[in-house]
């Protein structure tokens, strides 16, 4: 089952920090599902893109966005 991370209660920069921590526990090409709010979308997505991860799917359900991320070979460390 795809692990699920809920960051709907977090604010920047914790939103991306948590996504990064979530991804760090996974191996390449595994999927992580993230639930997030509108405010976090831009920063989380642009950070994921710049680190080279793949966004497989994004769906809007009411106020909440569900996003599935595929972990890629990490370009930068998780430190």
């Amino acid at each position, binding site marked *: 089952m795809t692990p699920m991370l809920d960051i709907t209660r977090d604010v920047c920069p914790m939103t991306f920090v948590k996504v990064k921590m979530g991804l760090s526990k996974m191996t390449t090409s595994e999927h992580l599902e993230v639930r997030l709010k*509108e405010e976090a*979308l*831009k920063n989380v*997505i*642009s950070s994921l*893109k710049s680190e080279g991860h793949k*966004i497989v*799917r*994004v*769906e*809007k359900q009411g106020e909440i*966005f569900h*996003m599935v991320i595929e972990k890629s070979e990490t370009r930068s460390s998780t430190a």
Partner: protein
Amino acid sequence: MKEADYKELKKGGMMRQREAGHFSVRLHVVGGQMTTGQLCAIREAADRFGKGTVHLTTRQGMEIPSVPTESLASLKEFLSDSGVGVGVCGPTVRTVTACQGCRICPSGAIDSPALADAVDREFYGKPVPHKFKVGISGCANNCMKAEENDIGIKGWIGPAWNKEGCTFCGVCEAVCPTKIVKVSEDDGRVSVDLAGCIGCGDCIEACPTGAMEEETRGCQIFAGGKFGRVPSLGKRILGVLRSGEEAIAAIRAAVDFFRIHGKPRERFGDTLRRTGFEALENHMTERMGKSA
């Protein structure tokens, strides 16, 4: 000293101070950039000719206050030998302000300091009907408050939507700060009402699939802003300018318009409210068409 002499000194950036026989000397700063060599020279000048203090102005300028009348000439000579210019005042094109732009700031769309340099080289200290300020922000975040200037420049990153690859996820609609993006999966399209676009590029940066692409990068231009006693914000004119050269051509045309239509001691915005902003746009389009 005669009133006329004070006026002459003021034009050259030497401003009469409250304390009799003393001046605050304005320095020439471009886009907020100074070398450490210049700073060392300014420090020495403030120690030798002033009272060891420097004032930072609101528009990225610097002044050395408390310089006695008899030291003005030697201060000027010392500064010019050290590669520091003296500022201007009166009805001229003033300090060009700029943020760090795309070479330093990750958000930057244009090289603001380079554009500031080019504007400064062509227009600094040149006569116009009233003081004329140019400010340059590298992107839509607008740290340099473009609309506060007689001419303001702001970086621009504009989108175009491609059906290929779009998953209708709704992210672009959600992140757009002006709410002009509408995602309609039922109609199979995403519409962008470009008239309301501020060129922030957020929809492009946030789109997970790359379906929202960067179409234009350059800058937008605002005319007629000012602060002071009766503040008013500049209005956006013309479309997106694609290069530094185009931005310079636009400023050249605007300065030219101000010289033709401005009355003495009338700020650019007031001239424009008299002539209408369209008159400026027409003049600029015509001039820029000719120069291109």
